């Protein structure tokens, strides 16, 4: 199953809306898009996962790698997700303490 990826610009933020399941089959496409954004000099990125049905550690690894890249440029990576089963993956791994997470885009003014 393909991952839906859609980038839009909201002021100083690049918002990547993601839809579908993020796993070993789809994570490479997500990684490629995020690496390209950082390569274009977009260091303030929001990954909107409101339409993500599933994420496993492969997907988490892509987000960790992106956080590392934007921080190396003084940037930020925020995550948006209101899907409880996806949010729970961040909670049980403890990654909710590493990422800045929001329930909606409105919370960071990039909606």
């Amino acid at each position, binding site marked *: *199953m393909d991952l839906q990826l859609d980038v839009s610009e909201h002021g100083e933020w690049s918002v990547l809306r993601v839809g579908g*399941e993020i*796993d*070993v*089959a789809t994570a490479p496409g997500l990684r490629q898009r995020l690496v390209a954004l950082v390569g274009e000099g977009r260091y303030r990125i929001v990954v909107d996962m409101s339409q993500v049905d*599933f994420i*496993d*550690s*492969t997907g*988490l*690894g*892509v987000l*960790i*790698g992106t*956080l*590392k890249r934007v*921080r190396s440029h003084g940037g930020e990576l925020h995550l948006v997700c209101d899907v*409880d*089963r996806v949010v*729970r*993956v961040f*909670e*049980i*791994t*403890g*990654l909710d*303490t*590493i990422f800045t997470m929001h329930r909606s885009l409105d919370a960071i003014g990039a909606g």
Partner: protein
Amino acid sequence: MADDVLIELDLPPRPESVSVARLVVGSLALADPSFDEERTSDLRLAVSEACTNAMLAQAVVDDSRPIELRYRVSAASIEVSVRDRAGGFDLDAAQRVADLTDPKRLEYEGGLGIPLIKLLADEAEFRRLEDGTEVVMTFGPESPTGRLVG
């Protein structure tokens, strides 16, 4: 009490096989009223992690051989076995995961799979076989309350 249900599935060691493995365990859990939606998500995640490890290992060593899954549904229990024939792996190294509160955690994009399996399954056994690895996970209906931090 009804007899156990056993499903055996051989899947090619390709990335798209992992979603099939998740679909099966998700369907089995949804069919059992003692497994709620949160616990069903746990099973899908743990199976995804085990299948990803097996698939990646098998694809490197011999992609003509499948990864072998066995699902056994008993009363209020689902056991999933994932087996590859990729020659085994360094379990000790694979289990090491940096403290998530440590800033150095950002240096590692992987390493969460096996800790997640051990957290989410009631029992998880990693068996080194002569020609590969078998992960056997047993799940009851209760979700864990712990986290991986630390």
